[in-house]
Each structure stands twice: as C-alpha cells, then as structure tokens.
C-alpha cells in the first residue's frame, strides 16, 4: 500500500524531470517574481523605516520565503481533476484498486518535493546573493516552519481538490478555479502580509483556512510569531487540514453517485 503511493510520488518526480526546459525556466520565474516584489516593496517603503511592523529587510525575507514556500505547496490538482473529469479519464482511475483522491494528493506531493529541492532551494540561494535577506539561525523555528509547510501543502491541496471536484456538478468550473487562485494568493498572504490588511478584514481572514497556507509559516520564520506561540499557532493548520476532509468526503460521495463519463 505504502510502496504504491511512494511509487506514485516517484513517478510524478520523474515526469517533472522529463521536461527540462520547464524546470530551468521555473527557477527563473520564481527569482523574477521575488525581484519584482522586492522592487515594488522598496518603492512602497520609500524613505520610511518600518511599515506595519516590517522593516525592509524583514519584508524582503518575507517575500522570498513565501514565494519559496509557494513553490512547494502550489500545485494544479484543481485543474488536473477538472480535466480528468471533463475528458472522462476519471473512469480509468475508477478501475484501479486505489483511492483516487489520495493518489492525486500523492502526485501533488511528488510535484511539491520536486519543486522544493529543485526550485526552492537553488532559487533561495540565487536570491540571497541578489537581495538583502536575513534568515534566522534558530533551529526550533525552522522545525516549526517545515512542519507548517507540510500542512500548507495539505490544506492547499485540499482546497484544490474541493474546487476540482466541483466539476462533477458544474461541468465547466474555469471561473471558480481562477477565483480560487486569486483568493488563495491574496488571503494566504503571498501578495500582501496579513498585517497590511484593513482591520475589518481580520476576523474574516482568521475564520478562513487560507492564512495557514503562507502567512502563518512565514510569520514563524520571520520571527513575528515566536516562542511557545509558534507551537500553539501550529494547531490552526492541523485543525484546518482535518476539518477540510469533511467537505471532500461529502462531495466525493455525492459525485460517485452522479458520476457520468463524458464522451461515451
């Protein structure tokens, strides 16, 4: 059982390696993104030392970390699911003795591992030569951060699975997928840290799972959340990753009943 899922992770890893240009351009795209945000934030800061409790260096570090984390947790499971449902190849998945959604999750994980080691780490090294970034040396903080990163992946994938499975009910969910992508980038703190958000938005953001994807791990690594608070913050992603299983199971069960295979 376990070796099968491991094999699926390995195969996705190999698939990613099969397309080299994709890989090289990937590192570049992430570096350019970080660069763009660095210069944008520099312009925003102007001559001021601090904004919303962030210094310029902290901000640059925040941007670099969130983008590198994004390389790991980001995946296209929503699109993959949606395509497989639309073109009917989901039928092939149903004749295999495995859980389709777990397999999808493992494929996403293979992709995540690939990007983490081959995009994020080389990209981070490249970026730290170009921009002023100060990474913490505190081991405990790194440990909490890495644990949180795993949950970032889980929660983001769960959201993707929910959105992807909606294809069973609304046949073309392109619009919802786009909305989800913008929502995740905005509400997770990749574009703007949560502390920049207006006060009235805070309860909304706190009530949604998105902040657990990028903002919480980034606050741990940049030291905005420290000490014992780190460990209590960890409960938020743990809770969400368990809570999100419920809608997935409900949607999946309903979908199995109304499954129709398009194209005969």
């Amino acid at each position, binding site marked *: *059982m376990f*070796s*099968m899922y491991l*094999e*699926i992770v390995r*195969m996705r890893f*190999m*698939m990613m390696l*099969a*397309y080299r240009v994709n890989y090289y351009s990937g590192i570049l795209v992430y570096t350019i993104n970080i660069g763009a945000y660095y210069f944008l934030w520099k312009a925003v800061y102007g001559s001021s030392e601090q904004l919303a409790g962030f210094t310029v260096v902290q901000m640059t570090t925040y941007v670099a970390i969130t983008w590198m984390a994004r390389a790991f947790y980001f995946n296209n499971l929503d699109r993959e699911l949606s395509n497989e449902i639309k073109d*009917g*190849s989901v*039928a*092939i998945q*149903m*004749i*295999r*003795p*495995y*859980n389709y959604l777990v397999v999808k999750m493992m494929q996403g994980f293979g992709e995540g591992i690939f990007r983490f080691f081959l995009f994020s780490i080389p990209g981070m090294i490249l970026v730290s030569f170009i921009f002023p970034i100060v990474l913490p040396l505190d081991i405990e903080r790194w440990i909490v951060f890495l644990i949180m990163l795993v949950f970032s992946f889980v929660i983001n994938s769960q959201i993707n699975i929910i959105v992807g499975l909606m294809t069973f009910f609304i046949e073309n969910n392109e619009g919802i997928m786009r909305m989800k992508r913008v929502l995740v980038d905005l509400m997770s703190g990749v574009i703007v840290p949560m502390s920049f958000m207006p006060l009235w938005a805070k309860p909304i953001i706190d009530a949604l799972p998105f902040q657990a994807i990028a903002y919480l791990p980034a606050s741990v690594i940049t030291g905005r959340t420290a000490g014992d608070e780190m460990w209590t913050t960890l409960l938020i992603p743990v809770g969400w990753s368990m809570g999100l299983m419920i809608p997935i199971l409900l949607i999946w069960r309903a979908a*199995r*009943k109304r*499954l*129709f*295979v398009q*194209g*005969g």
Partner: protein
Amino acid sequence: MNAIEVHHLRKAFQVQQNRAGLKGSFQDLFKRSYKEVVAVNDIDFTIPKGEICGYIGENGAGKSTTIKMLTGILVPTSGEILVNGMVPYKDREKFVRNIGVVFGQRSQLWWDLGVIESFNLLRKVYRVPADEFKKRLDELVQRLDLADILHRPVRKLSLGQRMRCELAASLLHNPSIVFLDEPTIGLDIVVKSEIRDFLKELNQKYETTILLTTHDLQDIEALCSRVIMLDDGHIIYDGGLQQLKDKWGGLETDEIVKSIYKSGSSQVPEESADV
C-alpha cells in the same frame, strides 16, 4: 459458476437541455431544464465463467454504459449486478483487484513515461509479488512482442503498439474477468488478428472470462460463441452466433446485423429474442 449476473439493470442520466436562441440562453442562466435519458433499460443476462461474449449494438445503444456499470465506474439507477460474486460499485477497491479493463478510446498508461514505468506501478497497485510479476510480464512481452517498446514513452507509440501495451497492462495481475471496450478500434488488420489470437489463447489457457464490445464483426466471428445485441438500451438478441446465422438463412454476419440494426428490435425473429 457464473462470472457475471445482471438482473433488471437500468441506468438513466439527467441530460441538460439547452434552449434555443438568445432568449433561451438567458432563460437557461436562471433555470435549466433537464431531460431523463435512459441509456440502459431493464436488461438481464448471465455469463458463465470462461466464456467469451460479444456485446454489440449501434452507437449509443448503451454498451459502454453497461461496461462501466459492470466495472464499478458507474452506479446503476436500479437493478442488480454480480460480477465475481461481488457488487461492483460497492467495495470498489476490493472488486477491481480481480478484473482487467481496456477502453480502446482511453489510455491507462502514463503518457509521459516509459511503458515499463506504468507496468511497475501497476505491479505495486495490484500488489503482485515480484517473481510472479516477472513471469507474467515475460510471457506478455513475448506473446505481444513488446520487448522493443518497453522503454519508450507512451506518447511515442503507434496506436497498435499502444493497444498491445494496454492489453498487457490490464492483464498483469491475471484477472479472472476481462472487459474490453472496443479493443480493436482504429487498428490495422495485422494487429487486429494478433490481438484476436492473443485473446483466444488467454481464454483457453487461463479460462479468463472475456466480455468485449466492438463494431468489427470479424472480432465477434473470430472470438465469440455467444453474442448479446443491444438496441436503445434493450437486449434484442442473446444467444449463439451460429443460431443467429441459421435463423437468417446463411447470410453473412454483417448483413444480418445490419438488417437487425436498421429494422430495430421489432423485426427480430421471435425465438431469438429470448433471454
């Protein structure tokens, strides 16, 4: 023992109706209308173990829908199915361990990777012991002539090569029942006859039950002793191929089938419509 038992099987789909014109499109925006389409309507049949049965019918007659219900992909609207003594859509993961499926129009191999990678994954998916797998793979490779293409990415295979790999993929775990949905579609005459020979041998050697749908009646003539003919969701003929021929007085099979398709169920001789 029966490999497949089907009683009063029915499957209906809700199909969305699009209203015509601009006004209709606006109406659809708020309220959609659906129409019920019955793909499979109250069919019964049983297939004993070790039989090769042909399942034929016009496009849209409900063949693929039946196959999808028998393989646990679709949940029937009503009726009973027992395959290998199990209900396919319940306990799906356990059920599919012992069946093999090939959809001629869809690939079950990993598009970007070498064929052997797919086979290795399937070994783990079906938990086939390594030595048994090796024996089985060697046999399939030799029988289906796959040695040269085993390491080629699936996307670079020709249709004939791919279909041979698909067959091998569906048989790696030595299933007792194999469902083939148009396995010879788009293949040239040489590959077709190779595949027929292979299936025949498989059936004789392992007593594998085979249910196949096809539009190529030569497949049926070469392989099947029994034919089930479907029209508009109903079974219009179920019986031996030879009896069918006898009844129609020495006509060629494709002539017989063509006239049955054209005339619909009502014109089939009464005796042959028994189940």
